[in-house]
C-alpha cells in the first residue's frame, strides 16, 4: 500500500475475516482484510448495517461464540511484543487482551455505564482488571484519568452515578475507562454520533490529543465522512460486509474511485459547498441490501449509476490495487474514474 506507512510497525492485521450470525445465517462480514499500524488512525466508514461495528466487535472478541462464528485471522501485536491470533483465542487469554491491549468505546454513552455503580468504581474496575495495584493507587489513577479528560470537577464526577451526568460527560468517562490500561489500539464505534455537535467537536479534539500523546492507534468506526476526513490517516469503506475501497484519507476523499464512495461523498450535507456547482445533497438511490439476500455480482450494482448489465450483476469484483496507494472493489473503476 502506501510506501511511507508501510515502513511503520504493524499492530493489527486482519486477514480474510468472515462472520456469520448463527440465528439467521447472515454473513455480516465477508473476507475483510486490512491492517493498522502503531499510532495510526484508520477510519472505517459505511452506512449502518454495512458491518462496521461487527468488525470492531470481532477485534474485541465480543461476538459471542453462540451468536456468531468467525473465520479468517486477526493478528495483534500485544504490549509484550507477542503476536497473538485473536480468532479462536481461548476466552481467558482473550480477556487479558480486552481493555488491556485493545479497548473499545461505544456509540451510546447513555447506556454504556452500569446505572448502579459510581463512575469512579467503574473506572477503578477497569484498572483493577489488568493491573495489580492497591485500592488507593487504583483510585488515584481513576481520578487522574478523569482529570486528563478535562472533566470540570473530577472528584465530584468520581462519586457521581451515571444518571447524574450528561451524555458528553459519560462519553468522557468511557474514554477515560478505555484509556485506563494504556491500550495500543482503541476501537471507537461512532463515539460521538449520539452527542450534540459542540460536545462532539470537543470530544473529538480531546481524543485526537490523547491519541497523539499516547501514540495509540485508533480504529474509528463512523458514518460521518467529514469526521473521518479530519481524523484519519487512512480510510476503509465498507459496503454489505465487504471492504469496497481503502486508501489514504486525502486520496480517497478527494478522488473516490469506487462509485459507492463517490455516492457517499455526494450524499452528505456540506457547509459552503458550491450550490452552483450542483453541490446539493444527492442520496444514493435504493437502500442497503438485505445481507440474507445479497444481489449477485457486485453487491452495489443495483444502486450504481455505472452498472452494466451482464457484467456488474454477474461477476463479483475483487479488491484490486488502484493508483495513489489505494485498493478498490469495482469492475469498471478504470473506465469510470475521471
Amino acid at each position, binding site marked *: 500500500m502506501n510506501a511511507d506507512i508501510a515502513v511503520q510497525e504493524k499492530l493489527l492485521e486482519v486477514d480474510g475475516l468472515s462472520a456469520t450470525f448463527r440465528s439467521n445465517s447472515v454473513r455480516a462480514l465477508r473476507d475483510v482484510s486490512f491492517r493498522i499500524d502503531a499510532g495510526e488512525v484508520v477510519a472505517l466508514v459505511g452506512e449502518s448495517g454495512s458491518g462496521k461495528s461487527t468488525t470492531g466487535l470481532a477485534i474485541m472478541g465480543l461476538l459471542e461464540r453462540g451468536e456468531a462464528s468467525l473465520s479468517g485471522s486477526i493478528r495483534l501485536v500485544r504490549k509484550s511484543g507477542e503476536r497473538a491470533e485473536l480468532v479462536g483465542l481461548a476466552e481467558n487469554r482473550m480477556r487479558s487482551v*480486552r481493555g488491556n491491549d485493545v479497548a473499545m468505546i*461505544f456509540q451510546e454513552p447513555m447506556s*454504556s455505564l*452500569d446505572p448502579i455503580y459510581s463512575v469512579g468504581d467503574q473506572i477503578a*474496575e477497569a484498572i483493577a482488571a489488568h493491573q495489580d495495584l492497591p485500592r488507593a493507587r487504583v483510585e488515584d489513577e481513576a481520578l487522574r484519568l478523569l482529570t486528563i479528560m478535562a472533566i470540570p470537577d473530577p472528584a465530584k464526577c468520581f462519586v457521581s452515578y451515571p444518571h447524574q451526568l450528561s451524555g458528553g460527560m459519560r462519553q468522557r468517562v468511557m474514554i477515560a475507562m478505555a484509556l485506563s490500561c494504556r491500550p495500543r489500539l482503541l476501537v471507537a464505534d461512532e463515539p460521538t454520533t449520539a452527542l450534540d455537535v459542540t460536545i462532539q467537536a470537543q470530544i473529538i479534539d480531546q481524543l485526537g490529543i490523547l491519541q497523539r500523546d499516547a501514540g495509540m492507534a485508533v480504529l474509528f468506526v463512523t458514518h460521518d465522512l467529514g469526521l473521518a476526513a479530519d481524523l484519519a490517516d487512512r480510510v476503509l469503506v465498507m459496503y454489505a460486509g465487504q471492504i469496497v475501497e481503502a486508501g489514504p484519507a486525502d486520496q480517497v476523499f478527494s478522488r473516490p474511485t469506487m462509485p459507492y464512495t463517490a455516492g457517499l461523498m455526494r450524499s452528505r450535507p456540506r457547509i459552503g459547498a458550491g450550490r452552483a456547482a450542483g453541490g446539493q445533497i444527492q442520496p444514493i438511490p435504493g437502500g442497503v441490501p438485505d445481507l440474507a439476500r445479497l444481489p449477485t455480482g457486485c453487491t452495489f450494482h443495483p444502486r450504481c449509476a455505472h452498472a452494466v448489465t451482464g457484467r456488474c450483476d454477474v461477476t463479483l469484483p475483487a479488491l484490486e490495487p488502484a493508483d495513489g496507494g489505494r485498493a478498490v472493489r469495482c469492475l469498471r473503476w478504470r473506465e469510470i474514474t475521471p
Partner: protein
Amino acid sequence: MLALVGRRLLTVIPSGLIVTALLFFSVNGLIGSPAELMLGTDATLEAIAELNRQHGFDRPLITQYLEWMGKALTGDFGRSFTTHQTVAEAILPRLPVTLEIGIAAIVLATFAATTFSSVTSARVVVRPMATGLAIVGITLPNFIIGIGLIYLFSVELGWLPSIGWAPWRTGIINHLQHVLLPILTLSAYFYGVFTLVYQAEYDAVRRRLFVRVAKAKGLSERQVSFRHVLPNSILPVITYVGLSLGQLMGGAVVTESLFSIPGIGGLLVDSIVARDYPVMMAIGMIVVITVVVMNTAADIVYTIVNPQIRLD
C-alpha cells in the same frame, strides 16, 4: 413522590374493607349461623335461636360485620369455640413459628434463584437444571415435594428428623434439624417463580450495552454476571417477593400440616376442620390484609426504584 406513596397507601383501606367483607359475608352465607356450628347438628331449634340472640347472630350481617371489624381493630377477635381461649392467645404464640419458616423460605428462594441462574461456568448444564428445578417447584404441590424430601433425608438417609417441631430452647442444632426440611419444602414454589422471573430479566439485562462494556474491560464472565447483570436484574424478583407473601400462606398451611408444625397455617386447617369460626375468621383476615398491604408495598417499592412506571 411522598404524596403518591400516601395516596397509594390510602387504597389499602377500601381494598382491605372489600376483601374482609367478602370473606365475612361468604363464610357466613355458606355456613348459615355460627350457632349451629357451636351446638352441632342435633341441637334443638330453640337452643340455636337462644344462642343466636345471646351472641347477636340474629342481627343483619352488615351490623355483625361492622361490630366484628370494630372489635378486631382493637385486637379482640373473640374466643375460640373449641379451646375457649381468646383468639389472640391462640394465634400469637404460633405467629413467630410461621414467620420464621416463611421468611427463611423466601430468603432462601431469592438467594437460590438469583445465584443459581447467574452461574456462568458450565452454563449449558446449570441453566437447564435451574429451569427444570423451577418447573418442578412451580408444578408440584408442596406436600409432594415435602414427602419426597422426608423420604430421602429421613427415611432413606436418616440424616434429619421427619416431622415434628423443636423450639429454639431445645437447642439450636435440634431446632435447625427440624426446620430445614419445612423451609426447603416451602421455598420450592417460590424458588420456581423467582427463577422464571429472574431469568427473563437476566436475559434482557445481558443484552444491554453496559454489559458489553463490562466485558470489554476484560472482566471474566463470572464477574460480569455477578457484579453487573445480577444486581440489575434483581428488582422484579424483589417485587415478586412482595406479591408472593399471600401465596406463602397457602404453602404454609400445607407445609405446617405435613410436618406437624405449630404455626398459624396448621391452626387454620385445624380451625376449619373443627369449624372453629372465630379463629378461622381471624386468620383469614390476617391473610387477606397481609396480601393487600404487601401488594401495595411491592407497588410502592417498584415505583420508587423505577420512576418511569407511574401509578394511577
